[in-house]
């Protein structure tokens, strides 16, 4: 039933399609409880393309149960390293200089407060070893110069035909494209590779620490 009714919009594996968001992240934005999911599947979400399904309650509970299995893969993965040693490494390598974690840290990289629920273990290893392999558009930086000569450098958070919105150490900014003499999107990661900086054990420990970073507490 999922593939036939839900797959058309949410993708065949639920990982996101042309009209529906990724359902495999382990965190449902609209409500994470079983009851919320039941309501959403049966009544839909008004004002969005998500329709309600007039299926039987039993069928809808089956869909909800199936939805849970889509993220079990990530939730059940166990990182092999030591979380406490990983926390120490996080501080030692000053990851907080660029990343926000539980309200503290920098703005240049993505927030890590829920990375344990949002990313698989494999992705965490890959991000530390080859950060340039999969650079999310959310982290792209805007680099340029205004016509007045001032430098523009920050993480791009929105863009339209006529303006950019970006964030830097000072806060939030909006700049008209017509005010820029030069602008480019930097799509390479600002993060260096940690393959050479960490031993294999240290890598395992840091990944274990990150895998445990979940909103609502780790496991």
């Amino acid at each position, binding site marked *: 039933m999922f593939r036939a009714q839900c797959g*058309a919009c949410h993708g065949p594996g639920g990982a996101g399609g042309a009209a529906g968001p990724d359902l495999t992240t382990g965190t449902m934005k609209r409500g994470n409880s079983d009851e919320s999911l039941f309501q959403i599947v049966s009544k839909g979400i008004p004002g969005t393309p998500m329709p309600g399904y007039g299926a039987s309650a039993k069928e809808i509970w089956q869909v909800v149960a199936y939805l849970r299995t889509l993220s079990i893969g990530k939730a059940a993965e166990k990182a092999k390293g030591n979380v406490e040693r990983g926390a120490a490494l996080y501080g030692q390598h000053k990851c907080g200089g660029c990343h926000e974690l539980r309200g503290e840290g920098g703005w240049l990289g993505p927030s890590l407060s829920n990375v344990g629920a949002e990313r698989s273990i494999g992705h965490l290893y890959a991000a530390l070893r080859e950060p340039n392999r999969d650079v999310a558009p959310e982290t792209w930086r805007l680099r340029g110069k205004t016509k007045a000569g001032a430098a523009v450098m920050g993480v791009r958070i929105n863009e*339209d035909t006529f303006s950019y919105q970006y964030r830097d150490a000072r806060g939030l900014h909006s700049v008209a494209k017509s005010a820029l003499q030069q602008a480019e999107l930097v799509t390479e990661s600002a993060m260096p590779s940690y393959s050479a900086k960490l031993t294999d054990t240290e890598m395992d420990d840091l990944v274990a620490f990150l895998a445990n970073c979940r909103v609502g507490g780790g496991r």
Partner: protein
Amino acid sequence: MRGTACLALFVQVAAAQVTYDRLLNAGKEPHNWLTYHGSYASQHHTTLNEITRENVGRLKLNWVWQGRSLEKFEPTSLVVDGVMYFTEPPNNVYAVDARTGRVFWNYRHVLPEVTYACCGKVNRGLAILDHTLYMTTIDAKLVALDARTGKRKWEKVIAEYKQGYSMTVAPLIVKDKVIIGPAGGELGIRGFLAAYDAKTGEQAWRFNTVPQPGEPGNETWGLESWKYGGGSVWLTGSYDPELNLVFWGIGNPGPDWNAAARPGDNLYSSSVIALDADTGKRKWHFQFTPNDAWDWDAVQTPVLTEVDVRGEKRKVILWANRNGFFYVLDRATGQFLHGKAFAKQTWAKGLDDSGRPIRNPDQVPSPQGTVIWPGVQGATNWYAPSYSPVTGLFYLSAWEDYWSTYYTYPQQYEQGKWYAGGSVKAPVPATNREEVNNKRSKSAGYGAVRALDPKTGNKVWDFVMSDVSDSGLLTTATNVLFSGNREGHFFALDAATGKLLWRRYLGGQVLSSPISYAIDGRQYVTITSGAAMFTFSLHDPE
């Protein structure tokens, strides 16, 4: 003195009868917008000339009407002698004073709790004849309202909504008939175009867009796939009074992405049909995408005009299709005159001499997913293009470099459930109802207002935008082009060059066509954005 002024005001806002004669000659009353497309030729062009390229920079906001629906706001308004009529989704109708936006009356249609619309409970607008307004509904009814009071005159069940039928199209009135069709191409319907008596609602004729056994074209549906063939009708067509033909674009065949389940060309899906307006008999048809494997509904506006073709003036239909090709067809015979791709596409090597696509055989949905240009929403879609008799150019909202990954799988039909036989992934979402930030790059696809030369299909200019657009266009006799986009901008371009002349950020996606009308010599331009409607003019509001 006071008495006379009151009388004048009353006369001004009382709507006069909209006879068929007035609809035929809509061009002679440019101060009104009498049909969904403005006139039967559907050029989305106004001959009003108060607003020019020189003064459009001084447009002022005159009024805003705010809706209270969370559904996508897609209607294009009618304006008749100072009264504006439109629908608020799903099926509410409003009559407001076109000068001030103040409400005269509204009508609310009650829908069942569970209905079957694929893509939101939307409605694209109304038709008017004499003093009656006509609306199609999500539960597949045709409703007739008294335009003076908003009271329902009658309603007619057109199709059984529980079988997956819904209706979203703004009707087309021709003579004494209301012409409409059902949506539901993803729900295994059997589509049709039908005409109903404007006074009684009795069916006058019906043309099956998915032919039944015994009807010509049924043989193009192998494996008995005609039973759930789709062939929906969800956008208003055009009419040529001299030929007495209605032209209509027909939706995709079902299941959308499993073409193997329906071997054959699948007539008349993803085609334009030309029917006799009195009898509904097919005069000709032209299929843009035979055995459509990508959900490329030919649900676009048939734009009627005359074009020089190899030294000869021909009466044509101009068609920028969802499949990425621009076509020029002779509208008396359906003959393909010429066509070429207007945006990046990888599914066809080109068109043969009859206009049939020469397909790239591996550019079809697959179980593991195939990346294909254009994406599922098409290189353009249902939002109205414009033809300007002044520049001679054809303008459209194009989605450029936009692709999707198409998946296919076998599926059994079940009544009331999606029957699409696959799915699609695209970096550009189908709608931005959820997304408030655009964090994509140009390589994910972008939007452009594109001007084409109808004589050659060549691009003349582009106004490039960051995000795509679902907005219709409007050109004026003074060479101003109005459009909006998904980002929430409403703007004016120079129709000759594409240069930006004016813009306002209205904050919500623009999902309808701009219209223009006039009252007491003042020209107004109206557009929807988000859940609201905005009207501008050069003058201070009253």
